[in-house]
């Protein structure tokens, strides 16, 4: 137990927890949107994240030819490069997510079989992606060159904000807002919501199911890809197994907030980021995961559908 660190480092912990939380928010969108539509844990989402991190690294290293000796960029060139990396990550993850749906889920969905078959199929795809990348990269970590020079830009008493932290928080918040608006306002978004309420009825209403589901995977994948880009901007490293722990955390965040619910993913992600940060500081990092799960169990005991979840239809295996 170490409460003194919370006193002296309260603001850095809070800010870093929020930034981490915002990355979780975007990844948990990948879980929660798919769950909302298909009632299915998209186990391959952590690998979709991993693929996205590699997209950023490949673009900045191989396409732009940057390396560890490159000086950080400025002005237009910085925006242009970061933009290219972002687009690459979002596309790569989005396309991978759609492919995962086609390879691992579509046939099974058409057959109308049990959900566990899809779960195992997703685990299979997950193994294929992870081992495939491991073989391609010789199992070594890849680092992303520093594109954005990290400087503290805000100094307000105890509050100090670094530019990459601001980028993560602002950018993730904007993306979340856009997805939220998209799902509630546009026709395709309404179709997604309709399918998540009742697949049968929406089919009768003339909704093209496969298209809507592909779109869901695409959006979820793109958000995961955006998270991968932000992750590379802050942490600047990736490896074939980078997705496992962060994917598990994002999935936990989705459940904490109420899986299948967009706003649940938002609050769940932020709550988890803060919880992890403070638990690691107070109890020691080794007890972080245990604390998270104990809190999760407590929350589920009192709110069986997560913090913000509506009553999920009875699901069974």
């Amino acid at each position, binding site marked *: 137990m170490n409460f003194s660190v919370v006193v002296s480092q309260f603001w850095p912990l809070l800010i870093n927890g929020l930034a981490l939380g915002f990355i979780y928010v975007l990844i948990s969108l990948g879980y929660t949107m798919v769950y909302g539509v298909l009632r299915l844990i998209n186990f391959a989402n952590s690998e979709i994240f991993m693929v996205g991190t590699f997209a950023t690294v490949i673009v900045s290293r191989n396409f732009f030819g940057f390396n560890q000796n490159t000086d950080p960029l400025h002005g237009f060139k910085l925006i242009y490069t970061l933009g290219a990396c972002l687009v690459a990550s979002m596309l790569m993850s989005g396309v991978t997510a759609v492919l995962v749906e086609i390879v691992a889920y579509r046939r099974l969905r058409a057959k109308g079989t049990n959900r566990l078959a899809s779960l195992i199929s997703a685990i299979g795809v997950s193994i*294929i992606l992870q*081992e495939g990348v491991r073989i391609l990269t010789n199992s070594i970590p890849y680092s992303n060159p520093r594109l954005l020079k990290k400087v503290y830009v805000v100094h307000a008493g105890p509050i100090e904000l670094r530019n990459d932290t601001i980028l993560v928080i602002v950018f993730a918040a904007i993306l979340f807002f856009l997805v939220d608006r998209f799902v509630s306002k546009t026709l395709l978004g309404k179709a997604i919501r309709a399918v998540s309420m009742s697949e049968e009825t929406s089919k009768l209403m003339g909704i093209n199911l496969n298209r809507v589901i592909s779109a869901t995977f695409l959006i979820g994948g793109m958000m995961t890809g955006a998270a991968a880009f932000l992750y590379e901007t802050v942490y600047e490293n990736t490896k074939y197994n980078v997705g496992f722990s962060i994917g598990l955390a994002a999935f936990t965040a989705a459940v904490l907030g109420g899986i299948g619910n967009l706003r649940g993913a938002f609050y769940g992600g932020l709550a988890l980021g803060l919880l992890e940060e403070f638990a690691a500081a107070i109890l020691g990092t080794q007890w972080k995961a245990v604390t998270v799960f104990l809190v999760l169990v407590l929350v589920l005991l009192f709110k069986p559908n997560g913090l913000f979840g509506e009553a999920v239809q009875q699901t069974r*295996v």
Partner: protein
Amino acid sequence: MINLRDFGAEKWEKWNRPKRTTFVVILLALVTLLPFAGDYSFSNFLNTPISSYQAVLVYPVGMFVLMALGLNIVVGKSGLLDLGYVAFFAIGAYTAAILGTKTHLNIWEILPIGMGLAMISGVLLGLPTLRLRGDYLAIVTLGFGEIVRIVAVNNRSTGGPNGIANVPNPPSILGVRFALDNMQGFFWIILVMILLVIWMVRRLSVRRPGRAWEAIRQDEDVAMLMGVPTLRYKIWAFSIGAAIGGAAGVIFASKSMYVAPDMFSFNVSVLILSCVVFGGMGNIWGVILGGTILAYLPERIRFISNARQLVFGLALVIIMNVRPDGLLPRKKREKIHKAGEATTNV
């Protein structure tokens, strides 16, 4: 699609008692002799490259089949998605390791203790969490599995990340020795345990608990309305599954003579669950087949070394797409067949 299960069931139905008995005896004899199959030219295609064939038969093959049968009671019979089954395996293994090295109890005396502890932890986990539905249960059990491992890493009495070495082998029974150079002993004891579990599951399936589990799996709300005490039967399913996992853990610890937290990662839970679904949820013969294949395959294809796990992943995807209900699915009438649900429950 070829339907092996119906084909087998049809044959079985037609046979009379002596025929059935002969079949079972011959099958059992063949399985009992499996550890020696690697030594003869007509059967040595079973040999695994690099790893020892006899050891592979014990772990992973025998262990996975045993645990898959245990998990099948939870997932296949009662429809509860458990992603942390490895926790019970770990509790059994650590019980054997701690008691085996710190006390004079032998493994046979520890076995019931390990099973009991696993069962108790199953009840303790089940009481608050089995009220949760579907996928919420999945994440909580997943968390429990990780907690057990993390506690083992951070605890002095479990040896921390180093684990515990020199767990004793069990003393011999009926002249069968249990030692590293005599792996068939372990194989036979696991075989006996598998047979006991099969017997128990078959008995339970046709009696009240089996019917209650079936009702819970098909529709929990309706089951509750019909007066089935669902929570109680769910906890029963959970703790019976846990006890089997604990038993596997005890034998595992004394077989490998060493336990460490790394052995009980999330991957093991996923693998066991894969065995159940891959073979055919709810059908013990399917689960046995699934466990055998998924445990044996990665060992058999060791010659492709680097891409071994990749091929394993491919096999999972292909087979699940070709046979979504597993290799040997449960009987049709046990499946949920309601037009609407077939799609919402995808």
